[in-house]
């Protein structure tokens, strides 16, 4: 703890403080624009900081990272367009809330939940980092396989009223996930001889097309020329019912735990954390039917879960030298450039710098309360007032710019258009889109892990079940699948009695 008070002294100086404030705002902005994502922003900014005070550079990373996870919720709620892959689950209840005229309330809940998740995660990073990091080592390929399967089981929650269509969507996602070079055999799969497809379809490109284009087309269909008045936006007052905030606390606790748990595992990201948190909130609810129809608990779970992933994802990077995602890799490379050697001794090499970064992760989460609530939300919500004739082309341009800069190749724009048209048609026939993205994320993880596990066990499949953690995860998966069934049966019996 002494480390942190010393570090705090260094962080609470003009440079890092202004960097945190500016970059949190920038992060909210980046997260809110579909296509732009924190990884890209940090990758662009970090090299510029190589000659700067490292605490200022890391303050910018912390701000962009935390800010963008909340920023993604803004278009998710207002327009049903997730700003980042991690805010898909936020659209489930956020947009229905906005539709009911509760946009401001939904944004407030998203903001507070993001801050709570971020703070919980930063506290875990500061207090239990090395311990949690050692825990991740128990997770080998067999365990990762079961985590992916566990995640896929949560597909049940988003299939909506027609399970067959939901499963079809998930299978479509799995198929898209198999495209490109197979990392385990080096074979190109489903690339149709096209070089640009060797890397598979880019998740963000598909996401932007699939998720942003259909709502934009729907806006265009309305052909609304006038836009909303300030009064119609209902931004000023969003009364909370008594006890409503207190009711969110269990959801926050659960989502923070899930987010941290997912975060510490290298390779599993905020999108999985948000899906799992949402699923858990729905399963725990006494009224699961209200999810997907504007239940504030859904927004709270998703946003708290994806922010709780952030600081926790730094745990294996800072404690073991194993970057769990690209942002963590960028942070490690920044530390290396400042002469530090990532690994178990990192903290002792420079407690002020490493401790300072942890404090910055905490403070930028606190800043979301102040900046996200007061400034950012009000500014961004104004976009919703724009008449459709202005809003539609503006979003389209932003989408195209965002998608183009990911790989700098025009073909991605066609992929986005294709995915968008597919998404529009699928929505018209009531096929849910979320399972497609989930399949794309978890399919490759499940496939590669199980093949690695079988290589290690020399082809013996029982190894997938005999290890304690894998067995536990397998049972948990079964429970997640069966729990809603049991609940429905119980309710039916209760209704009959």
């Amino acid at each position, binding site marked *: 703890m002494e480390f942190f008070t010393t570090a705090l002294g260094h962080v609470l100086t003009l440079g890092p403080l202004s960097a945190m404030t500016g970059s949190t705002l920038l992060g909210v902005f980046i997260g809110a624009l579909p296509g732009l994502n924190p990884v890209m922003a940090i990758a662009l900014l970090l090299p510029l900081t190589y000659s700067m005070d490292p605490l200022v550079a890391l303050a910018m990373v912390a701000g962009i990272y935390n800010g963008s996870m909340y920023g993604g919720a803004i278009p998710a709620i207002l327009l049903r367009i997730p700003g980042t892959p991690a805010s898909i689950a936020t659209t489930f209840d956020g947009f229905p809330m906005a539709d009911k005229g509760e946009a401001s309330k939904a944004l407030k809940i998203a903001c507070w939940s993001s801050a709570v998740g971020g703070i919980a995660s930063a506290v875990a990073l500061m207090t239990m980092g090395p311990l949690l990091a050692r825990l991740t080592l128990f997770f080998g390929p067999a365990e990762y396989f079961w985590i992916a399967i566990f995640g896929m089981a949560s597909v049940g929650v988003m299939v909506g009223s027609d399970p067959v269509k939901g499963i079809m969507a998930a299978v479509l996602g799995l198929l898209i996930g198999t495209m490109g070079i197979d990392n385990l055999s080096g074979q190109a799969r489903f690339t149709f001889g096209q070089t640009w497809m060797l890397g598979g379809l880019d998740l963000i490109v598909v996401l932007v097309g699939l998720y942003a284009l259909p709502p934009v087309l729907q806006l265009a269909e309305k052909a609304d020329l006038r836009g909303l008045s300030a009064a119609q936006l209902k931004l000023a007052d969003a009364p909370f019912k008594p006890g409503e905030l207190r009711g969110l606390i269990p959801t926050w606790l659960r989502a923070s735990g899930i987010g941290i748990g997912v975060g510490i595992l290298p390779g599993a990201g905020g999108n999985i954390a948000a899906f799992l948190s949402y699923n858990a909130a729905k399963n725990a609810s006494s009224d699961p039917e209200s999810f997907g129809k504007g239940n504030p608990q859904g927004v709270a779970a998703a946003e708290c879960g994806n922010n709780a992933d952030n600081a926790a994802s730094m745990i294996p990077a800072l404690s073991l030298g194993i970057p769990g995602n690209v942002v963590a890799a960028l942070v490690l490379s920044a530390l290396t450039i400042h002469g530090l*050697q990532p690994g178990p001794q990192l903290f002792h090499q420079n407690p002020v710098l490493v401790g300072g970064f942890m404090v910055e992760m905490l403070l930028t989460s606190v800043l979301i309360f102040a900046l996200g609530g007061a400034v950012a939300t009000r500014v961004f919500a104004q976009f919703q007032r724009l008449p459709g004739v202005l809003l539609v082309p503006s979003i389209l341009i932003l989408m195209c710019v965002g998608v183009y800069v990911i790989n700098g190749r025009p073909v991605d724009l066609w992929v986005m258009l294709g995915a968008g048209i597919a998404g529009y048609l699928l929505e018209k026939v009531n096929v849910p889109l979320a399972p497609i993205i989930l399949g794309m994320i978890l399919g490759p993880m499940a496939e590669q892990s199980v093949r690695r596990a079988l290589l290690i066990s020399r082809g013996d499949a029982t190894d997938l079940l005999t290890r304690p953690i894998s067995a536990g995860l397998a049972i948990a998966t079964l429970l997640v699948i069966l729990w809603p069934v049991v609940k429905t049966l119980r309710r039916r019996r209760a209704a009959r009695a």
Partner: protein
Amino acid sequence: MKLKATILGMSALVALAAPALAEYPERAIELTIPAGAGGGTDTSARKLAILLEEKLGTSIAILNVGGGGGSVGASQFMQAKPDGYSLFATWNSPITTVPQVQNVAYSLDSFTPIASTSETAYTLCVKADFPAATGEEFLAELAANPGKYTYGNDGIGGTMQLAAERIFQAKEIDAIAIPFGGAGETLQNFLGNHVDIYGGSISTVLPYVETGEAKCLLVTSAADVPALPDASGLESLGLGDKETLLWRAILGPKDLDPAIVEKLAAVIDEAVNDPSYVEFLATKGEVPNVVKGDALGDRLQSEYDALAEVSKRLGL
């Protein structure tokens, strides 16, 4: 009149041609990196780009095109115009290794070699309780137990795997390759005892050598590596000709003007040997190594041929 026009025309041509070189570069250069942001190739290229910007007096825009072990970026880059404003910062694997296992559209001829920048060896490490203390004992233990040990590597047909297999083939060793997504992932599985042997970059595993958790017994360079005193270089094991390194280079598109190549190679040489860059490389366990122009082309060709033979014998 006619003559005058011809002279005017010719001098205009000369005027066009000469400054094109003298003033190169007169606008921003786009540097394609065939890997995602944050990895070793990315950070070393970005750091170098900052120095090159200063020396060339122009800005350099970085474009990360990851995927396919670097082949996606290489394929995209080979279509660039050879005007000196599109450059490619790669490591050796996409050029010499990936084509052995993937059906790629490019070959060595698709690029103009400009200059290599730095290099480092790969290492093979085991846990502290492994029954071997030297490189020789390590290889003997592997040879005595065919199919018993698993080693993690950076991906199927990647340079790390081929570097290891070159040694294993020479010693008739059968170890099971487990491909991971990169050295970080390999380290995680090595520390968690999911694989027996760590195969990958030195800098990633180095902290665990210092804590005593890992012992690195072999490096894939001919010479020993000072940072790893317990590891044998291949020369000392009589395998000096099986050296495989990880190295980085700047390439141009096919048919790049030799004058531009020469100018860039000179500037890269300066930048790489800048004390700040040498210091930066040291933190990653790399050393500067500048091979320019045609000599670089020869290096690529001989590595390509050696790895072609290994992968053929592996049946990849």
